[in-house]
């Protein structure tokens, strides 16, 4: 099963908001702790190492694209 990048939530704004709100009031260090736990919980729920690897690649690619954009702006 490949990684699904279609929009899976009926109300995507609710999902985004739920994650954002979970971070409200946290310091950066607390947020990082929180994210670490959340990633592991979600990864286990997915339970498919191939999907997880694809997700990791996609996230990594975002990061690299972001860096390139920054460099171009400079």
């Amino acid at each position, binding site marked *: 099963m490949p990684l699904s990048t279609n929009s899976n939530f009926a109300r995507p704004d609710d999902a985004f908001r739920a994650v954002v709100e979970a971070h409200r009031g946290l310091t950066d260090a607390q947020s990082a702790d929180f994210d670490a736990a959340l*990633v592991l919980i979600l990864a286990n729920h997915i339970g498919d190492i191939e999907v997880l690897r694809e997700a990791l690649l996609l996230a990594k690619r975002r990061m690299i694209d972001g860096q390139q954009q920054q460099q171009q702006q400079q």
Partner: protein
Amino acid sequence: MADANTHQAKTQFGYRRHPDQDRPGKDAAGHPVVIVGAGPVGLSLAIDLAQRGQRVVVLDDADRIGEGSRAICFSKRSLEYWDRLGVADRMVEKGVVWSVGRIFHGESQLYQFNLLPEDGHKRPAFINLQQYYAEAYLVDRVVDLPAIDLRWRNKVTALENRNDSAVLTIETPDGSYRLHAQYVVACDGARSSLRQMVGAEFGGQVFEDQFLIADVKMTAEFPTERWFWFDPPFHAGRSALLHRQPDDVWRIDLQLSRDADPAVEKKPENVRPRIARMLGHDKFEFEWISLYKFQCRRMDRFLHGRVIFAGDSAHQVSPFGARGANSGLEDAENLSWKLDRVLRGTSPASLLESYHVERSLAADENIRESTRSTDFMAPHSQQEARLRKAVLSLAKETEFGKRMVNGGRLSVPCSYDTPLSSRDAEAWRGGPSPGCSMLDAPLGEQAYLTDAFRKGGTDFTLLSFSNGAAIDMPAGVKDIRIGGEGGLADPSGLVATRYDAEPDTAYLLRPDGYVAARFRHPTREAIAAALSRAAGLN
């Protein structure tokens, strides 16, 4: 390895001059196999080869065993191998049998595991036994075998690899001499001098974290289990391990900081308060103290001309997982029957390449597993530390969190994706597939499948489940028959269950107890083809 040890050598052996030393260098004596290094791997390999009818010379530069406990955990697989070598009973009798481990975080237990949760196996999941006992029992067995010529204080100082042999120059208290060997097996440990002589790289990862081993003697009521702590109250922020050995000796392993000064840390007066904090008392004596860093690395190739590397000389892992000595013993088990066949001329020399292929897979797996355990204990970055913290806290309330906590994954036999296996041609719902190690199972009271295999002579063996008719077998294959007239009884049905057997099912086992092929309906042709593939004949 460590100073500050009250513990002295357990056994010392005499150097004896051998007639080979009287021969001039140009007319040096020749031997089929010379093993360098009389540790657990070299000695086990020597016994195995001798039992297969080979004459073996074993050289060791020391004259004693017993400098520290060193390896202490010997796996079920190693015990099954030692059974075939005639030494397992003594090891198990002396050793401390265990199968349960507990992982703690702070003051509370996160989970416990049982490494052998089912009955019907001759050997336990693990025994703990000081390496010097294991070596002493192996030496005793060697003495019973006239085909083994064990030479102490014989130090190899030069090696010349020729097309058809290797020539060793050996230093002794009486001066040096030379030997020709058809094959040399280098079992001379992590700092192998033979590895340097062949000019091989030994690449891998160096870990900066330091660990303190203290073997202490005390009477204690802890159960015979492996206890591992993350961030215990007595050793804040780091990990700790407690493990029982025979003679009221306990192995304690404490993680230290990366910048700890080894010379200071291993002074008994500095170790004592740490251990006292852990135990809650200071009624103990030190047996052995050692401070170590470790490396996970391997040689690219385990074969260098006529020199074959086995054990720590070929690959080195972190100690978490008991993968050092046990994987070395698996090397010996894998190599012995192949080398025997090559020396007899019943298989081509290319069969030895499969030793490199199969044991490389195992080395990679062992390095991967032990690196992961080490990384979990000593995270590299803040974010890695966060992920670990998340796992440890999730482990308190979730099953998946417990399964992610890595306090060492203990050694189990590797399964080989190997050219010696014949692929399954039929459907199987279970049982060991080709490339996997055979599984033990009970054959009535006090009798086991591994015994039947050993008594059969540990050669190629067909394990078959009777359908009433006789199997047409190729010559030279031993036979273990379950059920039917004259067959072995399987009263518990566990042999059939563990091998997913139906009437007529058969497994072809290699001399090292690995599955070469399996059949729902064996024919002579199919068995012969699998046999010839497993012997490296095609």
